[in-house]
């Protein structure tokens, strides 16, 4: 009788264990689907510089020279916190964060600008292109 108690107890704990495990698996599945949702929300845009691609993974992306910036451009012509990209309603906007060398979108200096596909962003000596992510298959 005593062993039955223990077995039931272990069974209950095991069921809970398995349940937590399944929920974790679900969480991992959702990670993929929520990434997809995010790509839809953000129109799947990226910043590219020559052959480097910067993901835009959240709704506020800080660009600058500082180590804590999301996109770090180690170049003295770039301010520590140079510009910030934000998304809302699926529209990306870039703001100047009070940089020394200014922010240029398609060659014209701006404080704040709505970005469109294939816009050229110039921060100091660095040039970034704002474009849609190329799907792997095309390449």
């Amino acid at each position, binding site marked *: 009788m005593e062993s039955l108690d223990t077995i039931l107890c272990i069974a209950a704990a095991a069921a809970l264990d398995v349940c937590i495990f399944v*929920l974790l698996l*679900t969480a991992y599945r959702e990670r993929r689907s*929520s990434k997809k949702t995010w790509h839809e929300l953000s129109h799947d845009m990226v910043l590219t510089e020559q052959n480097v691609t910067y993901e835009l993974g959240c709704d506020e992306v800080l660009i600058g020279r500082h180590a804590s910036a999301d996109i770090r451009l180690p170049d003295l012509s770039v301010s520590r916190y140079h510009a910030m990209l934000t998304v809302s309603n699926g529209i990306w906007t870039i703001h100047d964060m009070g940089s020394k060398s200014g922010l240029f979108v398609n*060659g014209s200096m701006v404080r704040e600008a709505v970005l*469109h596909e*294939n816009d050229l962003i110039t921060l100091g000596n660095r040039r970034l292109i704002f474009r849609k992510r190329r799907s792997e298959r095309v390449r």
Partner: protein
Amino acid sequence: MYANPVAYVFSCIFVLIAHIAMLLNVYFNGNYTEVRDVAVLGAAVLILDISYFIVILLFKQTSYVLDFLLILVLNMSFIFQSCFGKVGFDVKHLITCIVCLASCKAGYILCRNHKLLQDKKPYIYGGVIFVMLIVFVFTSPEDMWIRIGSFAIQPSEFAKPLFILACATSIADQQKKHKILTFSVVYENLALLALTAIVCLIQVKSHDYGSLPTFLSIFAAGFLLRICYPKAKFSKKKLIGVIALVIVFVLIGLKYAPEYVQHRLHVDIWSDKTGDGYQQSQALIAIAKGGWFGVGPGKGFLSNVFAFENDIVFATISEEWGLIYALMAIFAILVMTSVPLVNPARSYYHGTISACVCAALIVQMALNIFGSCNLIPFTGVTIPFISAGGSSLMVSGFMVGMLMAAQSPSFKEPKHKKKEADVPTWRWQE
């Protein structure tokens, strides 16, 4: 928006299986006189499960895993609470669980659009101060509860989610700097510091040393995430210096703490088994009696000890269900707080909310468990979701709602702003 239907069906099934396994354990091992008691309990649990599964279909969320975890933990706690002492039907706890689920959804709806909240920062600050004023005026060190008829609420609990919202911040806010002399300062950080000071002072004044560490940990998490964006580099050396300073202050504070605090710190529970150490020593004995697998639901003796269902609930569960099961229950809550690690938030505002919620929940758990097991001084804090108590469950539910919001955010500007043209045009000028 139901992106993973198969995973959700499986989640539902396994949550139900986990609860059924618990109910079987109650049926075979439990201490009850009539089978009807178990049947009623089981029916209530399963009905609540299934109805919640249906209700969450109405919410179009990107992520449902937190809902499943929440219902898993809440029904688990409902079964625990119903079985303490004797298998029964804890109506009060069932109602508070439903309230908790409702407040969770409320929290989700309120927080999912962070732009909305960011505009209302002053109201949030006002709310915290308002709640603190209520604490200050209506409660005394002897009685931290406000009684309205047969209901008793603990107002300081309600300050927690508001305080978390006050601590949350976006990167954009942190870049709004102002120069004071030579320092560039974000005004909001100063305001938060002042708010924390007020909260702490009122907590100390009302002798609520249980909530104080929770508030401080929320503040610490929030503040750490704020100071990452100063113009001047906040180096690791300085950070360690600040932490050392805080520790020194805490030590000095403890040294000159009032008499009753000192007493709490130094009580030796085994030499004062019937006095101040009664709850803790009984809790530890109960854990020892329960062993790994417990004595069986409803068969424990700890349900005769004061505050068995909230302050020393970990020991009560350990005794009746076994230490392994108690640890698993705690683990389920831990998994809940670690969901943001699997599925990261998409905005800094939600990220800071997740970190603060995580700090609040885990610090409360730690205070309760380690306190009742005599690792740290005993404070009357509750384990979120597991302990009985309306205010605590409601607030914990709201906090999980915040986590949920971080998982399924919506990025929409408030309506009053003009919508800009969404026509990408191809331009290339150099």
